[in-house]
């Protein structure tokens, strides 16, 4: 192998590594929400107590965030039929990213954990002071934290 070939191989390897690392970093970065359509095979019933503990954590870890109960909405289904009289969690229904339909004969847990959105705003003028106590921003950050904690449980085999 001559020097040129070796150089080309090194650059190609570095490029492939860069692409792979960027893709990996995006996968590893916690999202701001999870839309659930999880059957009992997807999330075993033994994991739900740990997930429920994350959802019930009080106070939230983000200063000024709302209680976590307002940042999720989950319903259990058996053979396509919603169980119980109401959803778990009090996330406003108009904040759900997807509607309430579930697959036919669905058995498992559905709906949403976290707001599921990341801030993309622009301030005019740009030097307008930060106002950390406004509610929506802390709720976005708390959503991300919830997703991180729930994902850790889901990935723990």
């Amino acid at each position, binding site marked *: 192998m001559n020097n040129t070939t070796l150089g080309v191989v090194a650059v190609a390897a570095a490029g492939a590594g860069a692409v792979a690392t960027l893709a990996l970093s995006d996968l590893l970065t916690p999202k701001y929400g999870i839309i659930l359509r999880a059957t009992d095979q997807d999330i075993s019933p033994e994991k739900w107590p740990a997930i429920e503990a994350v959802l019930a954590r009080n106070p939230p870890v983000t200063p000024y965030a709302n209680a976590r109960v307002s940042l999720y909405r989950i319903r259990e289904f058996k053979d396509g039929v919603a169980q119980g009289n109401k959803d778990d969690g009090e996330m406003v229904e108009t904040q759900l990213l997807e509607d309430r*339909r579930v697959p036919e004969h669905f058995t498992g847990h559905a709906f949403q954990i976290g707001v599921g959105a990341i801030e993309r705003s622009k301030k*005019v003028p740009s030097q307008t002071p930060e106002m950390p106590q406004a*509610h929506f921003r802390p709720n976005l950050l708390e959503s991300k934290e919830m997703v991180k904690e729930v994902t850790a449980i889901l990935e723990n085999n």
Partner: protein
Amino acid sequence: MGMKTHVLRAVSLFSATSFGLIIFGCSKPERLDGDEQKHGLILRNIPEEKWNRILEVLNADSVTPDATPRKKLFRIKTYTSGNPPAEMGELDEEMLLGEFPSDQGFKGHAVQIGLGVKPDFDTYPASATRFASETSPAPSPEPSATPITLHAHFKQNLKESQIMVQKVDAILNETSTPSPSP
């Protein structure tokens, strides 16, 4: 220079590149201020000559199917000296990304236009059937004790926010034309 040295250099380059990307690639910024399309504007001190045109945008009908009326997607306080601020728009206070200024020492308009966020979520499991209202077939209603929401308004409101921001941003970015002399 031997073959071993070249291989070592290649491995070093690869490792350094990957390490750098791990360090910097994983720290995705919470908010970007570049050219990425914004979904919300937080404004203060809007030039008066642009104000009426911005109000036209805010008062227009929503163009995104199933989005709520635009008045639900903005909130404005207009501060004048000695008076409590006049309010317009019905964006839920819980959805504000920034607090409005206190009355003292500020005159002008303080505004949030649009929700100021874009979707960022995973579906679990990744293979789950998606039922986004814009892509789904005919609904099979969920037999539920709670009302069925056939349209996910939040996603529609995010789209409508983006459209409002585009239009208002275009007005703000126009260079001012001198007013005609009387």
